[in-house]
């Protein structure tokens, strides 16, 4: 697709120095072998390591425009890895909207989540579906809380300091959950509230956990996710809130040795939904897949900011987020930060974001960021494209007699179904497909 930055592997042998240069148009390590010179070259890369700007080198094709980086003045940060992490609210200054990580979020519509005391009643939590999984409601002084995730922004820190009791879901060691763990989160009050959920997949366990968000809320939420060594965990976060809901959620995962972690975001309902899912590798050999689907209607703001932190060697990550937009002032934001630290040799990572704008008046921001501090990696790349429709898809379908409207619907469904198919919970897949159908129907497509 348009606008890709590809970093392909090279046959650099161990101990060989990585050559740093600025000559290439594209961020690229090495050329295919065949030349004697096997030194790797990365544009914008210094000896110490420097962030790549995230692809200003794209070409437009098939009507897809390369991603924008916004026009707002921004307070820069030197590296995504240096962002402040703290449990102390005082460590995070009051928000102005100019901060790099808040510049796309309409603060006025947060309904006080970033300024007020979060004293409202937290939405009700009901966990069903698996008999061999432990579910506890614990007080905030439980030692396990906060052991996996540390707040990275003001709202997350406020939530940490405000929740009264937390839900802890534990998949015991070497246990395969005997059903999908459905975590119903149902909001009934618009008062600003805080919530804390801890999901612990102990070593060699296997489970699918679905956070199913419905109702009406003004909610600051932290979801801590511990993926133990050799564990296989899927966490699906579904946002089918009522139209007035405001939801800011940090969903941080720490991923252990040889673990498999899949995180799926589905954001359909709510006035403002801002999710910050992260995956932090803590030991080698793990694989992470992060998927997202969002469908914004008129006036809706759906934002997702991801972090994949490759801090250790030989881990693999794949990120695929897809969004559709329709209606006046529908706004989606996707920011994908991938950090490959100095120690993370052998990393293999690729992230993709695609957006499909179905009507005039909608806005989609897409910002992939790739920071690379070592050249000794398997591969790293990203792709981002936003467009109305792929004209070639449309032509192919119409050339088979399918009228334009029907062809567009078929393509949009297809575009989003790819992500729904990743959930692997048939009943939920079916429900979400129906929800997407309703969204499509509402847009007169």
């Amino acid at each position, binding site marked *: 697709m348009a606008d890709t930055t590809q970093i392909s592997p090279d046959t650099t042998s161990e101990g060989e120095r990585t050559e740093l240069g600025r000559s290439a148009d594209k961020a690229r390590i090495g050329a295919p072998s065949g030349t004697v010179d096997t030194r790797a070259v990365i544009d914008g890369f210094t000896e110490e390591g420097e962030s790549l700007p995230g692809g200003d080198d794209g070409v437009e094709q098939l009507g897809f425009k390369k991603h924008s980086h916004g026009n707002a003045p921004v307070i820069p940060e030197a590296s995504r890895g240096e962002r402040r992490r703290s449990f102390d609210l005082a460590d995070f200054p009051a928000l102005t909207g100019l901060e790099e990580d808040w510049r796309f979020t309409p603060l006025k519509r947060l309904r006080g989540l970033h300024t007020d005391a979060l004293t409202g009643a937290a939405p009700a939590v009901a966990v069903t579906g698996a008999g061999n999984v432990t579910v506890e409601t614990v007080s905030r002084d439980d030692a396990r809380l906060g052991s996996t995730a540390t707040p990275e922004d003001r709202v997350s820190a406020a939530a940490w300091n405000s929740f009264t009791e937390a839900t802890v879901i534990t998949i015991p060691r070497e246990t395969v959950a005997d059903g999908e763990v459905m975590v119903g989160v149902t909001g009934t009050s618009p008062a600003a509230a805080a919530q804390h959920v801890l999901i612990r997949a102990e070593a060699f366990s296997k489970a699918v956990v679905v956070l199913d968000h419905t109702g009406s809320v003004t909610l600051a939420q932290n979801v801590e996710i511990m993926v133990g060594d050799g564990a296989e965990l899927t966490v699906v976060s579904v946002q089918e809130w009522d139209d007035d809901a405001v939801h800011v959620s940090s969903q941080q995962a720490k991923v252990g040795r040889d673990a498999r972690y899949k995180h799926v975001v589905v954001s359909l309902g709510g006035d403002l939904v801002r999710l910050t899912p992260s995956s932090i590798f803590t030991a080698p050999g793990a694989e992470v897949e992060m998927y997202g689907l969002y469908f914004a209607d008129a006036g809706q703001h759906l934002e997702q900011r991801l972090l994949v932190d490759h801090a250790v060697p030989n881990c693999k990550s794949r990120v695929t987020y897809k969004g559709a937009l329709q209606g006046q002032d529908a706004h989606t934001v996707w920011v994908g930060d991938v950090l490959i630290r100095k120690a993370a040799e052998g990393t293999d990572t690729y992230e993709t974001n695609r957006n499909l704008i179905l009507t005039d008046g909608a806005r989609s921001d897409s910002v992939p960021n790739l920071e690379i501090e070592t050249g000794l990696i398997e591969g790293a790349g990203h792709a981002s494209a936003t467009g109305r429709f792929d004209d070639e898809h449309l032509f192919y379908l119409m050339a088979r007699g399918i009228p334009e409207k029907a062809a567009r619907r*078929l393509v949009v469904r297809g575009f989003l179904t790819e992500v729904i198919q990743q959930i692997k919970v048939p009943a939920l897949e079916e429900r979400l497909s129906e929800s997407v159908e309703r969204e499509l129907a509402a847009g007169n497509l």
Partner: protein
Amino acid sequence: MSTLEIKDLHVSIDTEQGNVPILNGVTLTINTGETHAIMGPNGSGKSTLASTIAGHPRYKVDSGTITLDGEDVLSMSVDERARAGLFLAMQYPVEVPGVTMTNFLRTAKTALDGEAPSLRHWTKDVKTAMAQLRIDADFAQRNVNEGFSGGEKKRVEILQLELFRPKFAILDETDSGLDVDALKVVSEGVNREHAKGEMGTLLITHYTRILRYIKPDFVHVFVAGRIAEQGGPELADRLEDEGYDRFTAQVEA
């Protein structure tokens, strides 16, 4: 019996360097039951002719006409052309992620016929056609062309040809990128449909080898956006021996 008639067709495309003419007066008539081969060197405009007939928006018709049984094809939208009975087997079929072959084929068949096919017959037809073209049954559940090899994509184009039963089939370099076995399978598919006597075929190719399997009634040599020479099957044999040099040399002179 149907007739597809192309008269003095001039086509151009808009590029960053301005408007570039590609077809410079093509005249060609195809009737039901006939197979016409259009041969020519790269860049002679063969594929442009195919895409223009199908209505690809990139190509601008500057003058000339295309009619199907007297109906003005150029005034029809892309889907109307397909429903009128024109089928383009594409040179580079696109991948449509998320749309399964099963869903796509049924949606298209329903659109083409104006009614949903009887489920029992349709499923059987699809299975039979897939087996004949040696397409694995599991392709039906895969997304349209997604992850298919070049040869598999071409077979799926011919699968559609057999299932949709058009009045006129335009095969745009269907043979390119196929190994001998795949070429045979694909050719057999075209011949099966042609043998029913209800289709005219326009076969666009760079190479003569497909003409060993699909016998043309007429051969047209395309050079610089027009037909430079036409004749019977013997013209293809001559091209096989002599190549296109004779024609390209004429143009350069």
